[in-house]
């Protein structure tokens, strides 16, 4: 089943309420996906440094890890929230990513970029939202997912959002049937994958297209040709997000839009707590049509 949510603020004065409203959206979608959850928050406060979102576990010797990365990464700050760590550093991804992958097997890089922060875990979405204190987050837009696993195991690696490129992320409600072939093709082209999950392949596919300077709209239109299966996607970038439903459109989605925000969710229930939502323009995205919002 799975629940997906997205919230984009059109006005800056609302940015400090992003976490509050997004956590309500995830809470309300826990009935659609009770086994895992995750969210991506976009804020553009950091202009020069990169942010690396890492998931650590009890095996990690955090003190040693901290000492070692302090030596290797420049202008480093570390923010710890539960079992996730955000590294702020001016050291570039080309150095940071292989360094972490090579030296820390038990540390999972869940996303990176100048704007994005990703948190995801296994468990009931209501608990996960509390654990990461999502209510406290501010930002321009956020995307979230509640998972009912079908394609792959219930692990952190199997939780959404999937980030396979700088400031990119994808959440998915549905299932793909040609992901194994597509994964092999993308691996040949140099894309790396951490799981056997179908959504990660879609995320990788989108990243591979975006890296060739294709627009988000054209990239998602290519998905209609090359991804076989059922899907409603929300794909995020540093400046906004886009949604797409496959042409059969059996996976639900509803959009609420007014002068202040755009909210997307699997069900209206997820957005019932948003301010003035009853007066917002509420509609269902058409099958096979890409909708984008952003600067």
């Amino acid at each position, binding site marked *: 089943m799975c629940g997906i949510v997205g919230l984009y603020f059109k006005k800056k004065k609302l940015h400090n309420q992003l976490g509050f409203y997004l956590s309500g959206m995830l809470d309300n979608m826990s009935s659609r996906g009770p086994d895992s959850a995750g969210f991506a928050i976009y804020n553009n406060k950091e202009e020069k440094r990169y942010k690396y979102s890492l998931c650590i576990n009890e095996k990690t010797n955090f003190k040693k890890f901290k000492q070692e990365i302090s030596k290797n990464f420049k202008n480093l700050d570390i923010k710890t929230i539960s079992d996730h760590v955000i590294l702020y550093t001016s050291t570039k991804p080309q150095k940071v990513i292989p360094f972490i992958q090579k030296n820390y097997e038990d540390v999972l890089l869940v996303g990176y970029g100048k704007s994005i922060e990703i948190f995801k875990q296994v468990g009931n979405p209501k608990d996960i939202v509390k654990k990461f204190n999502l209510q406290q987050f501010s930002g321009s837009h956020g995307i979230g997912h509640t998972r009912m696993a079908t394609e792959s195991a219930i692990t952190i690696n199997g939780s959404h959002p999937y980030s396979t490129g700088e400031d990119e992320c994808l959440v998915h409600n549905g299932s793909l049937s040609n992901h194994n072939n597509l994964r092999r093709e993308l691996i040949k082209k140099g894309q790396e994958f951490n799981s056997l999950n179908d959504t990660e392949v879609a995320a990788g596919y989108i990243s591979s297209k975006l890296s060739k300077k294709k627009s988000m709209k054209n990239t998602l239109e290519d998905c209609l040709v090359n991804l076989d299966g059922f899907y409603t996607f929300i794909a995020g970038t540093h400046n906004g997000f886009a949604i797409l439903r496959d042409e059969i*459109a059996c996976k*639900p989605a509803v959009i609420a839009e007014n002068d202040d925000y755009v909210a997307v969710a699997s069900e209206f229930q997820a957005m019932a707590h948003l301010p003035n939502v009853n007066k917002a323009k509420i509609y269902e995205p058409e099958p096979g049509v890409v909708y984008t919002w952003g600067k």
Partner: protein
Amino acid sequence: MGKIENLDFKKSSLRKINSFLQNIDFKNNKRDFTIKNPSGEHAICAGLKENMLVKINGHVGYYCGGMNKKANIIIEGNAGTGLGENMMSGTIHVKGNTSQSTGATAHGGTIIVDGDASSRCGISMKGVDIIVKGSVGHMSCFMAQAGTLLVCGNAGEALGDSIYETVIYIAGKPKSLGVDCIEKKITKTDIEKIKNLLKQGNIKKLKPSNFKKFGSARKLYNFNIDNVSDY
């Protein structure tokens, strides 16, 4: 069943509200009810079986008014998937848009949608009348067996795919017709039927002559080797 002063989702639960409406005691003759703060909850007013008026102030989730018998339900908002699914009689009037599978498998009664209905509207319908003042999405009236769908706007792809004896009246254009669905000649009986539906839907902008009629070519009813690719 205790007294419920307010059918309010902020003060009560779905199960309590539904159970109250399903087991209504008419001794005090109260037959009008208002539901507040529905907040997209699923299965609101499912399984009502008595003659009553229920007004819902807000948007509802899936399967609202499912299996309805006799009740008149008015929704001041949008409705999610499967509005009035398997309804037997009564009416449901939605002031906004509805999601997919509106009136799925419904046997009787009337559903009126002021806005648009999404994909698979009237899928497998078995006798209900559905009036949509806006447009309907793709695969509407898929395998529809009886009843009438009247659409004031347009229809998406594959309208009436594998349709049986449901009749479709549409003022706009279908993007494409499904297998075994064809345009048919409007008869005097059709004009009377359309007039009646327009009256029920309080639609004054359109006349029966604005509508085209679609229905089954009845070529898939029996096995025919020439149609094998269509089965």
